[in-house]
C-alpha cells in the first residue's frame, strides 16, 4: 500500500491530477474498526477537463502508470505494487470531499483521506446495503460532526435518503 500511495502522489507531482483523497472502504477504515475489503478507492480531481464535459478521460493516468510498469488490470482495478486501485473522478459531492479531506501518514508517506461526514454522504449516494453498513459503523465509532454532516446532507439533497435508508437519528 505504501508504494501505491507514493505512485498516486507522483501523479499529483507530475500534474496529472490536481488533488486526490482516499475514499470508499479504506477511507472508512481510517475511522472505524478493521473490516474486510478488496480495493483502494482513490478519488481524483483531474488537472485537465476534456472538451466534452460529460466524458472523463483517465488515459493520461493509465499511460503514466503503464510507463512505470503498472500495466496489470484485474477487473476494474489497476494493480499498483500488489494493491488493486480504482481511480474515481471526483465531481460534485466527491470533489468537495477531496477538497475537504485531511492529511494522513502511512508508513512515512503523506496522503489524504476523506472525513467521516463526507464518507457518510458518499456512501449514502451509492446506497447499497454494504454502504449503509459502513454508514452505521461510522456513526457508531467515528467522531462525526453532526452539524457538518447535516449541512452536507442538505446541500446535496440527501436528508430524506439518510432518514429512509439508515433509520438512524441524526
Amino acid at each position, binding site marked *: 500500500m505504501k508504494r501505491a500511495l507514493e505512485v498516486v502522489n507522483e501523479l499529483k507531482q507530475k500534474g496529472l491530477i490536481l488533488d486526490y483523497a482516499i475514499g470508499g472502504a479504506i477511507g472508512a477504515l*481510517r475511522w472505524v474498526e*478493521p473490516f474486510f475489503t478488496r480495493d483502494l478507492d482513490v478519488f481524483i480531481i483531474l488537472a485537465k477537463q476534456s472538451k466534452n464535459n460529460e466524458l472523463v478521460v483517465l488515459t493520461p493516468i493509465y499511460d503514466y502508470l503503464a510507463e512505470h510498469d503498472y500495466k496489470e488490470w484485474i477487473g476494474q482495478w489497476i494493480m499498483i505494487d500488489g494493491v488493486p486501485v480504482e481511480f474515481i473522478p471526483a465531481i460534485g459531492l466527491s470533489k468537495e470531499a477531496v477538497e475537504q479531506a485531511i492529511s494522513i501518514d502511512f508508513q512515512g508517506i503523506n496522503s489524504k483521506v476523506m472525513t467521516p461526514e463526507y464518507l457518510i454522504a458518499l456512501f449514502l449516494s451509492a446506497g447499497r446495503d454494504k454502504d449503509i453498513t459502513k454508514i452505521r459503523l461510522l456513526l457508531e465509532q467515528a467522531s462525526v460532526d453532526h452539524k457538518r454532516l447535516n449541512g452536507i446532507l442538505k446541500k446535496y439533497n440527501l436528508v430524506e435518503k439518510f432518514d429512509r435508508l439508515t433509520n438512524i437519528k441524526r
Partner: protein
Amino acid sequence: MNEDNIKILIKGNRIISLKELFSEEIEARKEMANLSFEEKIKILVDLQKLAYTWGGKKDVIIWRS
C-alpha cells in the same frame, strides 16, 4: 427466561450478564477503531488472507503490505 438475566463465566473467573457482554463488545470495537491506520491495514491483509484460505474466496487479492 429473560436473556438479560443469563450469566456467563468468562476469562479471569468473571461472571457477567449477556447484556454486559454485548456492551463490552461494543466498547472493544470502539477501541479497535482507534488503532493506527497502519495497524488496521495489517489486519485488513490478514482478513484478506483469511477470506482467501478459510473462506475459499479465491478471487480475493491479498495486498502486498
